């Protein structure tokens, strides 16, 4: 399927990278410039990257160690929000306690082993803090690279994106999987049973579909993730649960209708009639004859749905009801959309990452559909 398509290979490679980041990304601590520079100061992209040479050349005293240029004092160019005379600040290498995060990942993977903070090892906050300080001390002597710059809160954009991959991908994977599963079961059953069950299912699907996807998801989250007291905030975990649940509700009728239509194409085929005439039970006809034929075509749609869900998640964040902790692609975008004019890089990066991911899922979905069409034509 992928053999003759360069685009398909690129898409598969990108999705592989995304999955890799989703699995291993959270091992990477989110790099931060430090607490002291927290007032909407952004680091521009490509600051202090070894392959480009240090951009803040007035500060960087370069000394060559093993072929690459490194700065003895980590120099970061800061830009004040109102853009009067870009103030440049050097971070003192002794100031380790004030800084919260660590340097960029490609630097520290070369120099030090990252502290493996996995979900099954319980590390208390103190230990984490000590790890961070140690990590910072080790990166202080080498070079900080802000490949994609930082946000107004001093978070490194690249590491925030990599960290957010897990949330973004798991939201879409879980909701598409659950929604697809329930939708397919309902759709196929109603196509097989026909009669009043089919009519009621179709009516329910149509009713839910008559409210546009985003409006329904928006309303569901707003209603179920509203705190009792308007001044309270909802915990991120419950927000996440509600978000996934509403996306599932939105997806069920869409995939249910497609699964129903797909199942209807197969139900009157001769081989189904044949197995019915030899006395096969409804259950075995459904599982052995119909579902294996319907699932591949649903599979292609699932890929397309994955892309749609990522966009909906981002839109909901922008509308202010999604995640807002900057911990997923959409919420990173929403959180920083106010800085658009002065620091466009915080917007470009998540948008490009989301766009690449959606292009990839769409491309793969298309390829699967095309290869299915060929198979269909042969039958």
């Amino acid at each position: 399927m992928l053999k003759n398509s360069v685009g398909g290979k690129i898409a598969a490679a990108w999705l592989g990278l995304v999955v890799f980041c989703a699995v291993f990304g959270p091992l990477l601590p989110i790099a931060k410039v430090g607490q002291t520079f927290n007032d909407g100061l952004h680091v521009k992209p490509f600051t202090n990257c070894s392959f480009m040479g240090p951009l803040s050349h007035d500060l960087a005293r370069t000394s060559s160690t093993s072929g690459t240029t490194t700065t003895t004092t980590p120099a970061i160019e800061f830009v004040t929000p109102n853009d009067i005379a870009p103030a440049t600040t050097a971070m003192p290498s002794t100031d380790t306690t004030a800084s919260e995060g660590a340097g960029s990942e490609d630097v520290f993977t070369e120099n030090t082993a990252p502290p493996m903070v996995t979900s099954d090892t319980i590390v208390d906050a103190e230990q984490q803090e000590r790890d961070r300080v140690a990590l910072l001390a080790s990166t202080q002597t080498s070079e900080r690279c802000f490949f994609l710059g930082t946000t107004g809160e001093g978070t490194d954009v690249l590491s925030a994106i990599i960290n957010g991959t897990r949330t973004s991908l798991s939201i879409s994977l879980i909701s598409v999987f659950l929604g697809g599963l329930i939708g397919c079961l309902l759709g196929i059953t109603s196509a097989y049973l026909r009669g009043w069950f089919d009519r009621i299912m179709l009516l329910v699907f149509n009713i839910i579909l008559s409210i546009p996807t985003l409006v329904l998801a928006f309303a569901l989250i707003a209603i179920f993730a509203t705190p009792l007291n308007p001044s309270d905030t909802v915990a991120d975990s419950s927000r996440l649960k509600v978000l996934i649940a509403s996306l599932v509700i939105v997806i069920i009728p869409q995939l249910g209708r497609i699964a129903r239509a797909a199942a209807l194409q197969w139900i009157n085929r001769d081989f189904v009639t044949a197995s019915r005439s030899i006395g096969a039970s409804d259950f075995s006809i459904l599982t052995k004859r119909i579902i294996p034929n319907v699932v591949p075509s649903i599979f292609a749609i699932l890929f397309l749905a994955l892309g749609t869900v990522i966009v909906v998640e981002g839109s909901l964040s922008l509308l202010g009801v999604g995640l807002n902790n900057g911990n997923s692609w959409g919420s990173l975008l929403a959180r920083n959309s106010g800085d658009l004019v002065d620091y466009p890089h915080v917007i470009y990066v998540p948008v490009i990452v989301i766009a690449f991911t959606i292009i990839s899922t769409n491309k793969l979905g298309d390829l699967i559909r095309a290869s299915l069409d060929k198979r269909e034509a042969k039958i």
Partner: protein
Amino acid sequence: MKKAQSLLIRFSQVALVLLGATFLVSILIRQLPGDVSLLINPVASEAERASLRHELGLDRNYFSAYWMWLSRMFQGDFGFFIFGGKVLPVLKTAIPPTLQLIFYTQIVALTVAVPLGVTSAYKQGTRFDRFTSTTLFSLSSIPNFGIGLILSLIIGVKIGILPPSGYKPISEGLIDHFRLMVLPVLTLAIAPISTYTRLLRAEMIGALREDYVLLALSKGLSDRRILLRHVLRPSCTTLMTSAALSMGGLIGGALVIEIIFVIPGMGTQLAKAIGMREFLAIQTYVAFIALFYITFNSIIDVLIGVVDPRTRSRRA
């Protein structure tokens, strides 16, 4: 007679879906946590709160509360805001911007997509065809809020030839109105342009293989006439169905785009109402959005019958 009957069935189906949708919303709204009567009047006594709850229908069951809402809607009472004011005047100002946005988007999408689709079907397999389909595929994969933010930044702020955000009604000057609408419409139109072009191209390539095209060719008709009269017209029905189906996406997209471009339409109002927990207003807004979506789809269904006589005879 037959036709009237099928129209009647169609109409009753639409009414049923609409009733179901509004009922669903009214059930959902009741799930809002907390006592709404306390929101309206925080210092109310127990008796006052009970009468407030009675007035809002909160002490009734789902069905009778829904019936109350429905009968009020038909009497022209569209509810009120908990923090003061009626919903109707806000609705009157919020509907035009959203409708204009969606209407312009459909026009732009169709005027761009039809020539593109016809040309790439006519020149299928050429460099032009491949370039168009790849470009449109990539562009349509960019989330619309991303396109909106970047367009408003680059064209609106950096280049500065168009205002980056805002809205002015037509009455305040036609040119200003359209200048402000260009960016949001462009943002919204990219996805439908891609869908329509792809569909039209596929449909026209199918139609070009039909025997009647061969007949027309052998009659010596010009390519142009064949393409437009014999191929485009039957392909239009798919395009129209797709236009109706894309309406849901457009309404959802319009919500986000309105917020990005600061247009005081339904999306902005809905977001505001949800933020303030104006549950009466939310119910009315969602009902209107569903009404619009369903009505548009039914109109397209009827129109397809007019454009394509084949479906008419098949139905009868």
